């Protein structure tokens, strides 16, 4: 039971780091919060609405996103979209992500084979 908790909390921590990138990746075109919740769920990156909504506001206050109330529809909704700055940051984060995963792949495949060290 306790070991399971440890795993859960580590997984949570790992996922937390990917949240911002996931959100930014989906906001090249304007979307409202719950639309984003559903999209991310469909694409295998589920995120709680109670996490996403505050996160969207934070990203907006960091000027990565801008928002607008769409009031012409039956329900008023707040749409978020990347700013120019957000776009720029997203591109750079993607590059970092790619080099990170490359390094991680190398690190993890090293762990697989015990003999790797002997080849030096």
């Amino acid at each position, binding site marked *: 039971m306790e070991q399971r908790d440890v795993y859960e909390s580590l997984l949570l921590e790992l996922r937390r780091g990917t949240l911002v990138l996931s959100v930014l990746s989906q906001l090249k075109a304007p979307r409202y919060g*719950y639309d984003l919740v*559903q999209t991310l769920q469909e694409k295998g990156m589920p995120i709680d*609405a*109670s996490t996403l*909504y*505050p996160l969207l506001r934070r990203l907006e*206050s960091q000027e990565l996103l801008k928002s607008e109330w769409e009031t012409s529809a039956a*329900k*008023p909704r707040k749409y978020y979209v990347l700013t120019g700055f957000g776009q720029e940051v997203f591109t750079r984060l993607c590059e970092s992500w790619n080099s990170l995963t490359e390094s991680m792949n190398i690190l993890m495949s090293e762990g697989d084979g015990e003999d790797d060290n002997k080849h030096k």
Partner: protein
Amino acid sequence: MEKMTINTNESYKEEIISRYVYAVTKRLPVNQRSDIEKELSGLIDDMLLERCGDNVPTSKEVDAVLIELGAPEKLARRYNEYPNYLIGPEYYDTYMLIVKIVMACTAFGLFIANVVLAVVSSGQNIIGAVGSYLATTFMALVQAFAFITIGFAFAEYFKGKGKAKKTEESWYPNMLPPLQPQHTEIKKGEALTGIVFSCLIIILFNFAPQLIGLYSFTPQMTIIPFFNLEYFRSVLPLFNLCFILGLAREIVKLTIGRYTIGLCITTVVTNLASLITVFFIFSSEKLFNPNIVAGFKEMGMQTSGADFPIWLGNFEHIFLAMVTVALILDMAVVVVRTIRLQKKH
């Protein structure tokens, strides 16, 4: 029968959602509240729509959505980026308001007091008077600021300590307190008047007690103080205790803004404490200026016979009676209004 259920479900949904949204937004900075309120209501609607389609959601379905969103304290904390405050967003606006009022009252009250003092003691040099006014004001402002800040920091620190964690673990929508109708709100002006009044009284008692007295304007302005100023200074801390209790009560009123049980208890406790203190202070005859009757005579007033106004003869009792009535009346109003509200729910 069917219609009946729909109605109750509909009203349950509206009621519990507005309670939830209110419980979240009241913990957020004022300037973000209405935006988050709209967004959060929209989100809950969307979540219900996904689950129930066009059907009116049952109370269970509504509860499930709110449980998924989590305890309002927890959600509010996610909205607040930097959760460690000396004075958090819940109290910040009230804090700023109180600082402004108290600072303004202090500066204004001291100004008036000093002008009157200067007029009474004519012959004092102007530059010296202005200098001492500025110095006193500066010190008073710093002190007032420090006291208010410390008070609010304490309130922030002890706010829901210990209790919070437990409720979040096993949170359920039926724990949301009911919203009170608009008319139960305490008028802001009422509390603000109380705050301004308390500040001015504190300044008067601390910086110019000699101005509390009987005024005579002929042939020149003179004041006979009511109090024996030497003894008065020794009981001044007790007076201050009463005034600060009163000030605290008004600030609590302003912060809560509604007649709640908490406010009711605060009022009863602070008023009873003030009442006991006042009786203690007034129990000593030394408090009053022994020369006061002589002073009346000097002013050309009849101190005996039918012309002598009775209220002057035992004004200390009248003073005490007035304070007692005011404190009890204030307490009674709050208690009655609170009880009436509790009965309604």
